[in-house]
């Protein structure tokens, strides 16, 4: 059992480890998925920055080309002349608008949201596409306008009344390369632009200025959390938001999003403008979630190590069955076989040496039980001795094959105990004999060889020939059998001895008939002897004691009958007989009793 237990322990550990792994595995997988999502959203953010820069370069290029086109037209001269005047004239504005409209028609693709023509002082000469009827106001304050008037080309982000604009400004020169003014082109950063970016980066994007959302690719209400998480942008270096900014995890509409913020440049950037790129997060994985997400292909032979799994399963099963067979089934079969032999009388007790471990313990326990039964029987005999008094030595020799109920010659208890030689029982032993006695090997007890031959009883051989075993004893003869002189005892019943044949194992029924006579009381239907039968036996017993010169004062009928009834019950229980016949006879000069089971 030891190896089986070890194996079971190992299997349990393996199963525990497997379950633990199965429960733990979703977490690393979820972490890996989270890392991938984080990388993805950060990459999308970085790509957004690249796209915005490319877009700015394209816008600067367009503005430069636009300024060059203005230079080629009379419009540059209009700007140059307007710069000299203290006010922008209506004529300059009209000329500017007309030329501007012509220029815009030549622009292919998306038209600019706003176009401003400025004189050297930064005053608006003409507007197109946005608020195009007003002019004369100064926009020199804008950084991009100042730079353009100073001779630079640049881009910027402006937060104007109606939204966020990507703008670019370029100086306008006359044909003679005099500073004439500047041109500003702007494009709204609106939902259309956000959608366009979103498609390119495979993520959603929102734009914020001063804590307010100004454009969004999707109407997902994550603005509050996003704006709250954008505070750190002020502490980050420019352009570090995508890579170093905290990745936010926000919830909206029952979905989770991974969000990263990045600051926007320009004037709008100084007004806390930023954009946020976000993607929807995968649902958290647990064990059941992983099982549900598994696909049929995952169990294919090309992906799942079926051969290894089946091989390991077979090995574990074979080892387990082998250990069970070796340590459980085999010893149990052997013990069963030994028990069957014990039941069939082929063995007297378990051979403890052939059984190991628990089975050896079972064998020893059974052997101990057998030994205990023998000791109980012996104790019962001693009680009878105390009642009847010790029998004289050699009164009734033990018959061959007789069973000593109080066998004191049982093998010692315990494994390996050798059965000692059967001690010679005392003369007063209560003995059974004949066919009613259990087979000597029935309980695994060793056969008790008689130490002295049983005396031949008168008429025994004849009675055995006349009557079969188990038939009621014949009525006793009128004349009592010869009674040998027996030394006196302290009083009471000297002995009750089971009648034993001298040359056979049969009970000598003839003796019963001789002793009890034909008028012996019949046995009741329930097997119990009638009271007058005990009185009869008592009378015969007292009479014989008197003949033998033994005292009878201390032997009352009640005590005598009680003892007989007890022994009768014991014999009936043990031999499953119908009744017990008691026979009075003289043994070594003393009155004695014999008990014969009646089937």
């Amino acid at each position: 059992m030891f190896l089986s237990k070890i194996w079971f322990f190992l299997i349990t550990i393996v199963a525990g480890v497997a379950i633990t792994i199965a429960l733990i595995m979703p977490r690393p997988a979820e972490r890996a998925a989270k890392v991938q999502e984080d990388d993805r959203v950060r990459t999308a953010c970085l790509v957004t920055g690249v796209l915005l820069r490319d877009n700015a370069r394209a816008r600067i290029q367009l503005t430069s080309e636009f300024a060059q086109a203005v230079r080629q037209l009379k419009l540059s001269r209009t700007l140059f002349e307007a710069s000299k005047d203290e006010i922008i004239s209506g004529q300059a504005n009209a000329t500017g608008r007309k030329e501007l409209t012509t220029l815009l028609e030549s622009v292919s693709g998306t038209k600019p949201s706003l176009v401003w023509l400025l004189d050297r002082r930064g005053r608006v000469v003409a507007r197109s596409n946005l608020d195009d009827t007003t002019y004369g106001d100064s926009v020199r304050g804008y950084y991009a306008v100042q730079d353009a008037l100073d001779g630079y080309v640049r881009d910027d982000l402006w937060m104007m009344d109606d939204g966020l604009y990507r703008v670019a400004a370029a100086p306008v020169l006359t044909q003679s390369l005099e500073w004439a003014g500047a041109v500003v082109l702007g494009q709204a950063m609106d939902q259309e632009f956000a959608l366009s970016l979103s498609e390119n980066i495979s993520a959603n994007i929102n734009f914020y200025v001063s804590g307010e959302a100004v454009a969004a690719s999707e109407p997902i209400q994550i603005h509050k959390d996003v704006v709250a998480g954008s505070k750190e942008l002020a502490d980050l270096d420019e352009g570090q938001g995508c890579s170093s900014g905290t990745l936010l995890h926000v919830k909206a509409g029952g979905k989770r999003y991974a969000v990263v913020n990045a600051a926007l440049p320009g004037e709008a950037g100084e007004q806390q403008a930023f954009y946020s790129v976000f993607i929807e997060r995968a649902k958290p994985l647990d064990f059941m979630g992983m099982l549900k997400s598994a696909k049929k292909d995952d169990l294919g032979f090309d992906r799942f190590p079926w051969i290894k799994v089946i091989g390991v399963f077979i090995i574990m099963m074979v080892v387990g069955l082998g250990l069970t067979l070796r340590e459980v089934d085999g010893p149990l079969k052997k013990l069963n076989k030994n028990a069957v032999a014990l039941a069939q009388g082929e063995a007297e007790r378990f051979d403890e040496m052939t059984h190991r471990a628990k089975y050896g313990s079972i064998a020893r326990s059974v052997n101990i039980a057998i030994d205990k039964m023998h000791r109980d029987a012996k104790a019962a005999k001693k009680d009878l001795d105390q009642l009847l008094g010790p029998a004289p030595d050699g009164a009734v020799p033990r018959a061959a094959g007789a069973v000593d109920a109080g066998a004191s010659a049982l093998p010692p208890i315990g494994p390996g105990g050798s059965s000692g030689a059967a001690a010679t029982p005392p003369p007063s032993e209560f003995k059974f004999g004949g066919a009613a006695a259990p087979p000597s090997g029935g309980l695994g007890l060793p056969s008790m060889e008689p130490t002295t031959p049983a005396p031949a009883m008168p008429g025994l051989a004849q009675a055995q020939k006349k009557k079969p075993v188990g038939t009621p004893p014949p009525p006793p003869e009128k004349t009592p059998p010869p009674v040998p002189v027996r030394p006196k005892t302290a009083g009471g019943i000297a002995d009750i001895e089971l009648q034993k044949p001298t040359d056979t194992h049969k009970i000598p029924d003839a003796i019963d008939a001789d002793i009890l006579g034909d008028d012996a009381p019949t046995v009741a239907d329930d097997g119990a002897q009638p009271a007058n039968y005990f009185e009869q036996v008592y009378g015969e017993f007292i009479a014989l004691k008197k003949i033998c010169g033994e005292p009878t004062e201390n032997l009352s009928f009640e005590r005598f009958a009680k003892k007989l009834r007890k022994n009768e019950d014991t014999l009936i229980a043990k031999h499953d007989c119908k009744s017990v016949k008691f026979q009075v006879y003289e043994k070594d000069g003393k009155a004695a009793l014999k008990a014969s089971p009646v089937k």
Partner: protein
Amino acid sequence: MLLIRHLSAGALALALVLTIAPDSVESAPNGRVVTGTVKLPPRAQRRPAPQRGQGFVPRAKNPLRPPDGLDPRRSMVVFLEGGPVDDMDKKPQSSRYSIVGENFDSEILPVIVGGKVEIKNMGRGTPRLYSKSNPDVMPVDPINPKGVRVTEAITKAHVPVDIRDKDSVHFLAHIVAFQHGYFSTLGHDGTFTIKGVPAGSWKVKLWYQDGWVTNIPDTSVTIAGKRDPKAIEVALPAKLAAPGEAQ
């Protein structure tokens, strides 16, 4: 509607005419007029114009013509120091400072110590002006188009008061108080005119946004008789630092 817009544009232009002229105060009637020009150093010696803010990509020079470099004259005040000051010219006067769009009509406004400034919104927006250096100089509330806001008296001489807009990053101007009214801002070409200067010897000083320009040659003007002095020229040093930059 179109007529109204044109009229409003005309009104704006008229306001610009009135406000773009160099600032100077009414001085003593018997004084003389000091004129002059602040000249820039040669283009090659100028510092590049400071870049304020940056878009997605750095600014680039115009390929057709190199930039002229820094022109600080828009933020300068010519101040005369040393001569006898008429008491009348020390009296605080109210000055007007006009918003003409995305900024004031000039980048700096000189006033006499104790004078107040009336800010008039000639633009289309509704700026919320405030001062970081002197928060109590005016209430922070929107000024509607054509609206007026009067500041508290500017009491400290030579301590510039910045004026900003809560809703616009680029909106920045300075008000500087001087002890008397013999000062003038510069035109876009660097010219200036100071009227009512009493007779005497005056040293020409230049205030550049938030401090004196120290590394210019000593320039003085002497006023005597009834004739105005000859126009003076003040040459700005090369590599003049932009406001906020170390010189």
